């Protein structure tokens, strides 16, 4: 008799079903001797594989082109270096600075930045919907929006370097979050007022868990626009906000 059969007596089964449905954790998986069942192992491996692929694969060119993003790269040259050297993922080269000055709108109210961060899947899954909502929402409020950028191998704080060079008032960085096993699609929006290199994390605002099963693009877009308006009004972000 299997474990599942041995506990399958009426009331308990109903109670167990409810428990398993309610919990996001891997409960009631049973066992094969002292090891997990085959199906549980494979399901775990599948979720981990999705998470790994989100970290290790690149954002598709299609996503970047469709969203009309101007692509630049941080000072990181490959994936291994990206993981080992967060300091390089926060910086851009002199050549990129020159490129930004030539190709981008100067001193916008809001500079939008998209970074692959730790999940290309999150960018691929959300940016197509989120970016147009954001641009429309910001322009409706009378903000000028800079040339939207995609930063390959970008960390959160690359927004400081970009904002400083372009003299933007506010930068919004949409960046792929470190994936969990439950979803690899989660995106965060970091916002900073008066960007400059070395601006502490505490002076940044964040809206996280943006994905279809979390905070959907349409709601996230509205929240970000609202937060930008507040930051503009109060001339600050993060801990500076009331």
């Amino acid at each position, binding site marked *: 008799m299997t474990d599942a059969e041995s506990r399958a007596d009426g009331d308990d089964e109903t109670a167990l079903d409810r428990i398993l449905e309610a*919990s996001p954790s891997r409960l009631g998986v049973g066992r094969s001797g002292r090891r997990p069942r085959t199906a549980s192992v494979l399901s775990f491996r599948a979720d*981990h594989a999705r998470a790994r692929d*989100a970290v290790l694969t690149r954002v598709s060119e299609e996503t970047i082109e469709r969203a009309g993003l101007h692509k630049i790269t941080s000072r990181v040259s490959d994936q291994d270096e990206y993981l080992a050297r967060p300091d390089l993922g926060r910086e851009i080269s002199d050549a990129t600075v020159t490129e930004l000055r030539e190709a981008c709108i100067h001193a916008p109210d809001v500079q939008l930045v998209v970074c692959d961060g*730790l999940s290309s899947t999150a960018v691929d899954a959300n940016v197509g919907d989120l970016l147009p909502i954001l641009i429309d929402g910001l322009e409706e409020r009378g903000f000028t929006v800079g040339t939207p950028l995609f930063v390959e191998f970008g960390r959160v704080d690359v927004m400081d370097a970009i904002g400083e060079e372009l003299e933007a008032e506010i930068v919004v960085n949409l960046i792929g979050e470190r994936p969990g096993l439950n979803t690899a699609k989660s995106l965060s929006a970091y916002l900073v007022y008066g960007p400059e290199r070395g601006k502490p994390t505490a002076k940044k605002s964040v809206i996280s868990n943006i994905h279809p099963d979390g905070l959907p693009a349409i709601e996230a877009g509205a929240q970000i626009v609202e937060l930008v308006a507040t930051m503009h009004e109060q001339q600050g972000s993060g801990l500076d906000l009331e």
Partner: protein
Amino acid sequence: MTSDFESTITGTRYSFDSLTEVLAKANEEKTGDELADIAADSAAERVAAKDALSRVSLATLRENPVIPYDEDEVTRVIQDAVDEDVYGKLREWTVSELREFLLAEETTEREIAEIRPGLTSEMVAAVAKLMSNLDLIQATSKMTVTARCNNTIGGEGTLSFRLQPNDPTDDIDNIRNSIREGLSYGVGDAVIGINPVEDNAEQTKRLLEITKEFIETWEIPTQNCVLSHITTQMEAVENGAPADLLFQSLAGTEAGNESFGIDVELLDEAYAFGEDECTAAGPNFMYFETGQGSELSSDAHAGVDQVTLEARCYGLAKRYDPFIVNTVVGFIGPEYLYDGKQVIRAGLEDVFMGQLTGISMGIDACYTNHIQADQNDIENLAVLLTAAGSNYFISVPMGDDTMLNYQSNSYHDAAALWDIFDVHPAPEFESWLEAMGIVEDGQLTEKAGDLTVFLDEPEEHLRQEGTQ
């Protein structure tokens, strides 16, 4: 100009400016030391540093703490705790001699216990740097450090587990069911400990209450803990929450602790508070977590390598005679520990250094999804550290923590490790598992792995037992 620290062992002369530089460059390869720009530049320089370090005396290590006594209170805690008589007998030893003493056939836990009071964290770290992985396992396996709260952890032939029933929304029912699942596999003797989503006294109190209630209802010989900030826990307890253990993260520098919002004065206060207010029998009731790289991540490493700083965490922890200290080894990210190889090395170093310091040491053998490691790596590490005699591991359902979004060992890993190594849960806890019918003569029964065992009220459960 000659240096006190030099080596020609590789055929090239290397000299080092300071003991701190030798300690850093003698480390096995870690991305964190490279990020801090203090690692050896080549494999040859690394070995040269190990060679130079092997000839350094324990007196030199004592007299040259990596951060000066006047500048750092962690240094002061470590230095002031040294037993001068014991140290006096060891001061002429070289690091090489300390390594060979620990590995000698005739050296047992008893002999190691006699030298512990004479060691500083710099000495503990230095000897780890001269050890291979199997050296670390061999030396750790000799050491037995026990601690007592509501049960006894770390005894010969035991292997305990923390049951970590985290939930992404702190849902009480989900947390209770996760506790039921873990207990049904026989885990939870180290602690039933929750990482709360929100760090506030009200939530901490609530989670302490429901865990304590569960423990009392089922008469489980274990301890509860909610891992919010120490000040939050103290506030919860002042408001009447039942806490068996008090938790705090530690760093190996004063500046690192400042970034955690703590200092020695606050820890002293928490310890005095816990003596009066903790609900456990004791005498050990503190729970600390550490991990290589945390000081660098808060820019508080003072140019010191992450192994030496980790040893200093243990030197600080020892002041509070903790029930458990946990190195969270693969959580911090690939910029500190790049892959499975570095995580395994760090795990072996940490448990060795903790036990040599004389604290009840265990590990969260874990990984995030952006590190180059997977479940196989931490299963390997769990096997190695069970062989070494780690006091405990962290465990979560199927290894998947849905609140912290990382993976650790599973409840199944616990069951397999007990079997493979013929080790057992803490004795009081194992007796309880037998009384509950989950374990019989050391074997799992068909109830094992069935959380519904804990759905009924205990009286009803026992009544059903009687009628079968």
